[in-house]
């Protein structure tokens, strides 16, 4: 197809390039994840990406849309990959299938497909399985450095497919550092006591804190390639840091440190890879600051006073809902149009 009117310039890199950049940026953190927790993550990734593509293809076929351009835009791959990183390792295949079905069908295509979904599809799928399957979603495996052993790839596949028993691996599971914090603080334990547990590292959990560093590095790559802009990660991390700092200063004995909050759970991944999903995020610069700030604040509120140990998914979905309003009230001043207060002189 030829352009009908100007400009006639070499086309810019496409959306698939943006998505590819996201995938590239996810690689270091993903490798670190495998390093600390084992090859089981690969099983998660294979199932999640596989189901994402499958459901995307299925619904594209039902909607009589061409498969190739949409499947090759990598958006389903990104959604599957992010979902695989959010759920516990060694999740059963059917849980991943349910999550991806909700992500791709309800979260994305029922709204009209890529570009039309008000919610982050991966987070829709994640929240559905989080609420539906609490037992599976709280079965977390220990880092290799703590447990000393991990499944190999074959064991991981057969475990995911339900061929091997949970009993065999039961000793390796444990609550996440964030979960331990929440439970133990509920038992009136001191921060210093809680941190005695072997799952804690310097800032966050063992392994988790280093994976978070790699997400951060990937995020810098995304900023460098201009795949994302700084506004959302900076305001989101800033909000988490600010609240964590305020409450930590007030009561360092029973409140987790700001460092712990930044380097635990989904905050770092969320700040650079999830909240920055352009389709469901605010589009104006001012709006992005508000949006990121809102997510950061909600994360801290849910972690501290909510019913779940982490709150990135909920925070992102709640902020997604506010995007039209945020966008409306943060329109930039157009060239030659005076700001409203000047209209009255």
């Amino acid at each position, binding site marked *: 197809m030829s352009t009908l009117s100007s400009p*006639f310039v070499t*086309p810019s890199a496409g959306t698939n390039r943006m998505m590819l950049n996201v995938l590239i940026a996810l690689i270091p953190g993903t490798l670190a994840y495998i390093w600390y927790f084992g090859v089981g993550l690969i099983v998660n990734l294979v199932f999640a990406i596989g189901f994402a593509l499958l459901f995307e293809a299925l619904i594209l076929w039902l909607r009589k849309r061409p498969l190739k351009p949409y499947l090759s835009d990598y958006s389903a791959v990104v959604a599957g990959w992010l979902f695989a990183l959010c759920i516990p390792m060694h999740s059963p295949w059917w849980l991943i299938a349910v999550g991806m079905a909700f992500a791709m069908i309800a979260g994305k295509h029922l709204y009209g497909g*890529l570009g039309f979904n008000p919610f982050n599809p991966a987070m829709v799928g994640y929240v559905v399985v989080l609420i539906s399957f609490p037992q599976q979603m709280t079965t977390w495996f220990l880092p290799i450095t703590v447990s000393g052993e991990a499944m190999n790839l074959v064991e991981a596949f057969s475990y995911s497919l339900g061929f091997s028993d949970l009993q065999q691996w039961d000793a390796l599971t444990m609550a996440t550092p964030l979960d331990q914090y929440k439970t133990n603080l509920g038992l009136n334990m001191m921060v210093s006591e809680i941190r005695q547990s072997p799952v804690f590292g310097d800032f966050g959990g063992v392994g988790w804190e280093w994976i978070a560093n790699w997400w951060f590095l990937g995020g810098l790559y995304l900023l460098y390639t201009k795949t994302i802009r700084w506004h959302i990660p900076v305001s989101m991390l800033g909000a988490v840091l600010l609240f964590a700092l305020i409450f930590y200063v007030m009561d360092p004995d029973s409140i987790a440190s700001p460092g712990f909050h930044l380097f635990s759970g989904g905050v770092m991944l969320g700040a650079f890879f999830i909240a920055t999903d352009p389709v469901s995020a605010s*589009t*104006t610069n001012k709006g992005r600051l508000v949006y990121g700030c809102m997510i950061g604040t909600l994360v801290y509120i849910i972690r501290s006073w909510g019913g779940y140990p982490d709150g990135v998914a909920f925070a992102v979905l709640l902020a997604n809902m506010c995007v039209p309003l945020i966008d409306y009230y943060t329109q930039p001043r*157009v*060239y030659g*149009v005076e700001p409203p207060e000047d209209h009255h002189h």
Partner: protein
Amino acid sequence: MSTNPVIYQFHGGMQLEHHKQLSLGQPLQQASLADEIIIPLNQHIGEANQALVKVGDEVSAGQILAETSELVSAPVHAPCTGRITAIEPRPIAHPSGQQADCFILQPTAGLATIESWDNPPLADSSKQELLEIIRAAGIVGLGGAVFPTAAKLETADNYPIETLIINGAECEPYITCDDILMQTRPALVIRGIQYLQRILQPQRTLIGIEDNKPTAIKAMREALSEAALEHTEVVSIPSLYPSGSEKQLIKILTGQEVHSGQLAFEIGALSQNTGTCAAIAQAVDQNQALTSRIVTVTGPGVNNPGNWLTPLGTPFSHLIELAGGYKVAQPKLIMGGPMMGLELNDDRIPVVKATNCILVLDQADQPQAQPCVRCGRCTEVCPAKLLPQQLYWYSRARQFETMEKYHLFDCIECGCCSAVCPSHIPLVQYYRYAKSEIWEQQRKTYKSDRSRKRHEFREARLERQKQRDEERRRLKREALAKKKAAQQQTGDKPDKPKEQTVDAVQAALLRVKARKQQQDAERKNISNLTPEQQRQIDEADARRQKMKQEDS
């Protein structure tokens, strides 16, 4: 080298590959005359011109071919001596691909060569005289807007002009016609500026040139210091598209923004293109009408890109031949630059006052548009600080009113948003479409308002008529009643005999019939004829008679 004054930034913009060297490889050349010169009657924005010459007329170089007395207009002139062989619709550079009336001029003599570019002494014409010269020379804004320059200057006269801005930015890639003009004839541009200064009396004059044209900047600075103009400066500005857009250049040079929906005069700024300045100088000093302009012929699709001083009316094909012909099998022909130019599908289209560049690209396939992912890159580059992505959204939903609220009409159609879009959505096309839909809507509203008013007026008129008739009948009835009463008093019988009434009617009818017959007998429209008309009628009658005889 003089120092650069403070400059300001506009929002967004794009750093584009310039491709300027492509057409600067050879010096400015005079284009030869084509065998057929095609001159559209209208080459400006504004009122339509009327043809002053007929088919078959011999015209001389510089003769006015069409004009109108309206203010917002510019006459067109013959670029050479020749004969008008036709006045007919021909394809012109218009987005719709429509044809327009053109003079077809067959040259009978070569181009008059301009003897010398040396500066004659500065003409001492008054402001009014200068305006009249500019008007009569058919000068329009040569940057591409083709608004009649005299009309612009006269309108600006109602405002105090603080800053005269000379636009030498030439920010579109590939185009070098202003660049080469400033490099080779800076003195001509400066003289044009001097005449503009005499008309406008600005407090200062700023000549904005993008810093990717160091030779032009140097030449202009030298010519400026030679002319010793006060309060006039050449300002080197960063090469950032679209710095040459009027509103953006004003922001860069003055820090001020032209208010939305207003003209630049209202903040005391007026801008003129460098090419326009040169045309003014030529008109004033050498009595030259605007019958030629510099055209850049460039792009990867021609063999020898360059700049040609081209007589207006020269077909594109002739210039492309001068540039060594097409280099590619499927050339994509564009008038203007790649960002805002117009794609043409016919190379027999003539060069007009608006033709700054003929760009020949290779017909490359554009990628299919994909869904918008709201990445916001369009917002980052938009020099009008609009939200292109939101405008696109509303345009798809045909929510044109909302688009107006999102300042659709502040869009300058620079093309940055489309160029950066990773989904390859032709955004500007959507805005052009929305604008035309809104204009169409406004036209319809205006029309329906007018017909509604007409209808109401007609209803009121009929009502008045009815009342008047009613009143007349009432008066008549009263008169009759009075008469009757009077008759009764005198003792006459109330009823006249019936036969008598019938007779009266009969008589009236007969009278009418007789009159009609009489009228038919004598032909109504032949009284008061001039002898000439009488003669023609007689001839026609004779012919008719003859034909009748032949038939029988």
